[in-house]
């Protein structure tokens, strides 16, 4: 939001006078007055489409009801948002939607979190009023990350809007028209053959169960009871500040040590932290940046590669920039491979028996775990299953765990110890900040005096800064949300064709707006407010750590001493680095 002066106007909502910005819709103006008008299609992140028809209100002087999401307010407008008649109209609309929505709530993944189900409950719909007319359509499980269940779609258009306008991926679109209209990947092909990058923003915005994560909790339960296996787990940075929301805690509450305890209760034999992997990623990536800056400037800017959706996007849309990608694996793959090599060797455990589960805020991590041969660097699949935060919430509930009263526990050594730099990986700007903390040390031999780089924090879609390192100025850029990233990449492409110096030295990218804290696998109800709350939680976690630099994490030092040698060593390259290749946008 810009801080521009806005003209205020007076309107009457439910006969009470309020003063609001003149360019609001009725729906948003009502929100200012703390009046919630029900809607199934309008989402704060997205454009109003007027698709669902539930947000209708009465406006004095107008004969018909109007949709509040698409109607702008006017001076002295008098609006009624709730009364018995509106209740009936809205109820009818919901009944109509329910008439072509399958009655499968009990077996639906969104049971209990579905927005349509909530309205059916609140509006007192106890039987199906209209004759059901359901169009059968089989589920598309092809990506093994996102599931399209078009049968359940209520045609609100949120997924299409987020996929086309925010992510600019254009995997999803409505096809056909009228009653036959449905969501489908580009021209009715499988999602895995489409441009989909598995970011899961569609599933984070879907009000019902039409777009969901590929659920793998059963695989994990089976591993936990298999006596031949040694189940091990790791949690991502962004999980710890959102997990508590599902147990009544405020967004941003740090629940790291309770999650460790929970995971042990579920039966995991060792509990690690992806933040440790993040510290290792930084050791490698900051060194990579330092070396390119000193010796190989034409390979700058260096672009971060922790986000698998982003990797998929770049391989599909900008293959000519692959040489700029950091070759370092993402923290969760690093934690995975180190578990099945270093940890296994040290503790004399057969790596073939280790079953590594990662708890991620992300749907694309499900894709990443078998992305290329390098994800099997230990000789086994380095991460066996990747669960979303939401899946772990369900396991905690069905596992009978009283999360609130769990006693905090520590992670297992040594892949559980992390620095503040490792934890901020979970939010936009965090990877860059962590990398710069260590890169500064590599350039100068000293630590940054001002550890917190406020200039690259916050929710602006593209953030730029010049970081002073001795006499040098390192130009960095951070982009999140694929739509923003495109603009930055086009700048780089242009500088390459014109053979001029690129405008940045170092670029951080995260596919989801806000970064991993608002990832496609996080608890529902995403909004900018939630993005900020969760990201504040991440920064608080950083502040609470005694060690704030990856290169000062004593366990990371130990790992290099005992096992890897030094960053970018031969062994590091074998285990911690990966390759990229151009991929087609459409496979069919």
């Amino acid at each position, binding site marked *: 939001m810009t801080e521009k002066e806005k003209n205020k106007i007076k309107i009457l909502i439910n006969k009470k006078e309020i003063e609001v910005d003149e360019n609001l819709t009725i729906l948003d103006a009502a929100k200012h007055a703390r009046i919630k008008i029900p809607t199934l299609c309008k989402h704060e992140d997205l454009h109003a489409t007027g698709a669902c028809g539930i947000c209708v209100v009465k406006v004095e002087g107008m004969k018909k009801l109007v949709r509040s999401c698409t109607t702008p307010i006017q001076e002295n407008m008098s609006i009624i948002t709730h009364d018995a008649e509106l209740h009936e109209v809205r109820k009818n609309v919901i009944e109509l939607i329910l008439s072509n929505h399958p009655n499968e709530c009990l077996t639906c993944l969104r049971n209990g979190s579905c927005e349509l189900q909530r309205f059916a409950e609140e509006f007192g719909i106890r039987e199906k009023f209209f004759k059901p007319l359901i169009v059968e359509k089989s589920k598309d499980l092809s990506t093994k990350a996102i599931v399209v269940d078009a049968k359940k779609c209520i045609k609100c258009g949120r997924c299409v809007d987020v996929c*086309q306008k925010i992510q600019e991926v*254009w*995997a*999803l*679109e*409505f*096809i*056909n*028209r009228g009653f036959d209209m449905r969501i*489908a*990947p*580009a*021209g*009715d092909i499988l999602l895995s053959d*489409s*441009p989909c990058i598995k970011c899961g923003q569609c599933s984070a915005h879907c009000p019902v169960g039409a777009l969901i994560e590929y659920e793998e909790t059963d695989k994990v339960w089976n591993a936990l009871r298999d006596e031949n296996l040694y189940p091990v787990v790791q949690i991502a940075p962004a999980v710890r500040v959102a997990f508590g929301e599902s147990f009544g805690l405020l967004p941003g509450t740090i629940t790291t040590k309770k999650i460790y305890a929970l995971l042990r209760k579920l039966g995991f034999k060792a509990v690690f932290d992806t933040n440790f992997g993040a510290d290792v990623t930084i050791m490698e990536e900051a060194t990579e940046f330092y070396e390119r800056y000193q010796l190989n400037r034409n390979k700058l800017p260096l672009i971060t590669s922790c986000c698998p959706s982003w990797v998929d996007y770049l391989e599909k849309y900008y293959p000519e920039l692959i040489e700029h990608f950091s070759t370092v694996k993402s923290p969760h793959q690093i934690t995975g491979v180190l578990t099945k090599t270093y940890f296994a060797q040290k503790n004399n455990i057969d790596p073939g028996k280790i079953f590594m589960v990662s708890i991620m805020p992300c749907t694309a991590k499900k894709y990443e775990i078998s992305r290329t041969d390098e994800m099997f660097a230990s000789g086994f699949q380095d991460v066996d299953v990747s669960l979303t935060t939401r899946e772990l919430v369900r396991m905690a509930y069905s596992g009978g765990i009283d999360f609130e009263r769990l006693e905090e526990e520590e992670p297992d050594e040594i892949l559980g110890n992390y620095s503040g730099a490792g934890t901020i990986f979970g939010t936009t700007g965090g990877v860059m900040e962590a990398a710069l903390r260590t890169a500064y040390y590599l350039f100068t031999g000293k630590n940054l005096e001002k550890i917190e780089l406020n200039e690259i924090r916050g929710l602006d879609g593209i953030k730029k800064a010049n970081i002073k390192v001795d006499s040098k100025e390192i130009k960095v850029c951070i982009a999140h949300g694929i739509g923003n990233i495109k603009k930055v990449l086009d700048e780089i492409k242009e500088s390459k064709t014109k053979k001029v110096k690129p405008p940045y030295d170092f670029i951080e990218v995260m596919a989801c707006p806000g970064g991993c804290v608002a990832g496609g696998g996080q608890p529902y109800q995403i909004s900018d407010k939630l993005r900020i709350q969760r990201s504040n939680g991440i920064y608080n976690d950083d502040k609470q750590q005694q060690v704030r630099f990856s290169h000062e994490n004593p366990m990371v030092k130990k790992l290099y001493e005992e096992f890897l040698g030094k960053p970018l060593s031969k062994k590091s390259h074998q285990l911690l680095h990966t390759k990229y290749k151009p991929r*087609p*946008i*459409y*496979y*069919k």
Partner: protein
Amino acid sequence: MTMQKEEIKLPNEIIEYIEKNSNKKGFEIMILHKIQEIYGYVPRKIAMELSRKLNIPLAKIYGIITFYHIFKLNKPGKYRISVCMGTACYLKGGEDILGEIENILGIGVNSTTEDGIFSIEIVRCIGCCGIAPAIVINNKVYGNLKKDQLIEILSEYTKIEGKEIKND
């Protein structure tokens, strides 16, 4: 080989058309009409090439093609059977006529027989309500239809092609 790498060239006719009209409003629809005029339908490979050439997402192109009934996704048969489902034809048994044609040819609506001879589509009123139920095969109208006439009508066309309708 992946689709992306394959070089499918748009015919010169289409490229010229694009160059001439690309600044016009509603251009996407015009070019799709042109493609259908040339091929009789919008082939996926051409749609994909068009998507690349114009930098329009394929999903958007398919959104348009499937929204307007006039665009076809599959190659129509040499003889296009249009079954009228306008009010009069519908009331006079248009559905039975359609069902019988589907039975005889062994294909459904919006599909083409394997030999490429026939395709079936549904149309709204063709202005022949007085002789309902009616069908049109290419440009020839058949009215006052009864189910048992259909095999004879369709055979006229298979004979021209030197084939027979396999009735099982």
